[in-house]
């Protein structure tokens, strides 16, 4: 049997299929990015939104008066442009970037752990990020710079947690089970520290809720850019490891015999997935299930080749988060609710379905 990822007579056909699937996913995501800004909490006609988008994207060349005929707020057309371009579109783009980051991290972790239930949050990375953010809020560290410090501390918290996980991975006892259980234990430990901090500073809990429930709002293009840069670099590096992940699925010994240093690759992938997750968590807080669901969607549609699963999970993750945002606005017009609630609504039943399928296949003697 040819190892997944190795050359085969059908490789050109597979390559063509991969291109086709990724192209389709990319097209759908692009359509979502165009449609999503039509939805918001302030009523603006779709025509005006589109005019503003094209006006801004063309540097003012198209639609010289994008607000013509629209009902404008007291601040005039500039106010509408701020709402559509700066507030709404930056939120949409952040959803894409964060969703993509979580999706590709989830796909990577599922491959590394050879466990379809693995998820970026299972390892406690998000709990570390939340604790980092809470430290800034509770101890009111340099209040004037919190806009910068909050994501920075969240990132540091997430990375610090990842370092502990990586240390466990590099140790003699770094089995898959040990890593997962270390993550679960760390997550509980960090959550208890967070609860203790908040008990002594209840005012801070209002702000920490932001992290616990996940949120796309209150950000701008600068933060989008930072998140995009980190996710793009770390995500691209992850996506280049599809072949190694394919070989890891055959077991460490087989992977080793095929030239893959499984421990080294595992540590490297864990590090990259952690950085990607940390970048997402730093700006949005905990958004669950995107990393779990997205790789499975790609597998169902296009098979389990990680060279397709990883970039596909990034595109599906971005689309999933965007869809969650849009559905929340349709279900609760005029209201912004934490996005994490909606991803969990969709993700939790999916998780239960996966558990059911695993149990069913093991009962039937499958793998």
């Amino acid at each position, binding site marked *: 049997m040819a190892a997944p990822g190795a050359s085969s007579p059908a490789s050109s056909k597979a390559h063509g299929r991969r291109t086709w699937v990724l192209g389709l996913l990319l097209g759908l995501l692009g359509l979502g990015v165009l449609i999503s800004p039509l939805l918001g909490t302030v009523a603006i006609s779709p025509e005006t939104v589109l005019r503003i988008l094209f006006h801004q994207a063309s540097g003012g060349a198209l639609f010289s008066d994008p607000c013509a005929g629209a009902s404008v*707020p*007291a601040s005039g057309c500039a106010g509408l442009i701020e709402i559509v371009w*700066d507030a709404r579109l930056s939120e949409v783009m952040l959803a894409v970037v964060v969703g993509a980051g979580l999706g590709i991290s989830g796909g990577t972790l599922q491959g590394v752990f050879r466990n379809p239930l693995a998820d970026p949050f299972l390892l406690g990375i998000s709990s570390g990020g939340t604790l980092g953010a809470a430290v800034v*809020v509770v101890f009111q560290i340099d*209040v004037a*710079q*919190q806009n910068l410090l909050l994501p920075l501390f969240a990132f540091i918290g997430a990375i610090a947690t990842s370092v502990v996980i990586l240390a466990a991975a590099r140790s003699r006892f770094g089995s898959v089970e040990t890593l997962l259980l270390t993550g679960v234990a760390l997550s509980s430990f960090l959550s208890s520290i967070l609860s203790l901090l908040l008990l002594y500073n209840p005012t801070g809990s209002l*702000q920490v809720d*932001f992290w616990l429930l996940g949120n796309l709002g209150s950000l701008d293009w600068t933060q989008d850019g930072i998140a995009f840069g980190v996710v793009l670099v770390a995500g691209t590096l992850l996506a280049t490891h599809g072949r190694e992940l394919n070989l890891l699925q055959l077991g460490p010994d087989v992977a080793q015999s095929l030239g893959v240093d499984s421990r080294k690759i595992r540590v490297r992938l864990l590090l990259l997935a952690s950085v990607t997750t940390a970048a997402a968590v730093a700006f949005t807080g905990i958004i669950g299930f995107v990393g779990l669901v997205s790789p499975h969607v790609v597998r169902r549609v296009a098979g389990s080749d990680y060279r397709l699963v990883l970039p596909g999970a990034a595109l599906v993750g971005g689309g999933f988060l965007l869809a969650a945002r849009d559905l929340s606005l349709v279900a609760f017009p005029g209201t912004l609710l934490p996005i994490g609630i909606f991803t969990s609504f969709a993700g939790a039943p999916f998780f239960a379905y996966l558990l059911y399928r695993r149990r069913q296949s093991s009962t039937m003697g499958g793998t």
Partner: protein
Amino acid sequence: MSSRTVPLAWFVVAVILAAGISVTGVATYYATRPSTSPGSLTITDDLGRRDTVTTDPARVVVLGPSIMDSMYRLGLRSHVVGVDCYAPSLGGLSSDYSSDQVTLWNLSSSMCVQTGPVFNIEQLLALAPKLVLASTIVSVGAVEQITQTYHIPVVMLQPATLTGIVLDDDLLGEVFGVPTASSALVASLQNQIFRAASLQANLTANGTPFPTVLVTYSVDGNGYWSFGPTTFGQSLIELASGASIAANATLPYPELSGEQVLLSDPAFVVYGTGYGLNESTYAAGPFWSQLSAPHDGQAFGLDSNYFTEPDPTMILLGLPQLISVLHPASSTA
């Protein structure tokens, strides 16, 4: 002079000194606060942030009921174009403001800027404010966003002490160019604080112990939620010459178990009303019927906002009402 009266005299002197220092502090604060150019003012807010604001801004969004109380009392309601609300589907305006406040301040849902559970920047921008006055119900990150991305000045008003409430009202008077109104409000606030301090000094001088009291704002099957150290609720109880049974709690908002409350058996119970809470709610709490205060007719309901919202109403209405509960003779004197 007996040995007992010496400490009492020192206590009275200390109270007067504290009041003096407080007034001096206020005066110093006024004198040193920098202003930049005519028409604008650079101020340092309660979180230590510095921002330059246009004086007398016409369109203001207020994010915090306590700030709205100050704006109303300073006669600045007409400047307010938006106020904080919870998510419309989760209560909206009524989550943050009582029906009395909505009526008195003429608030409507069209003024809503959703601050929870997620801050809604779109609604804020649609109101085109020239100034945002915010309490910590808005995350500091969101505040910085408003300032840096959308260039709308934000002043955070979150006093840490009762004196801070007075200072904030004076600051608002300066920003909106209403020194007469703010001076009058500040004077009435200081008057209430002074009266309470005088009562405290008299009670101490006479050797009258402060009555024990449980001030509770919520109840469940385990016990009564109260105000611990560093909270406005505790400051108010202290100023009203009460001895809270939660004064030495470890947490700022502790839940006292039914057993703890029964063991302390306070002379008075003051329970917070509003938001669906009334005496029957608390009467369902643990050991309520075995406490002396309800049995002796010494359980009283007061508006919860008096203990939680750091605003002028806390001092102008909450403080005298709490004093009249704990020291009925003083209020009739």
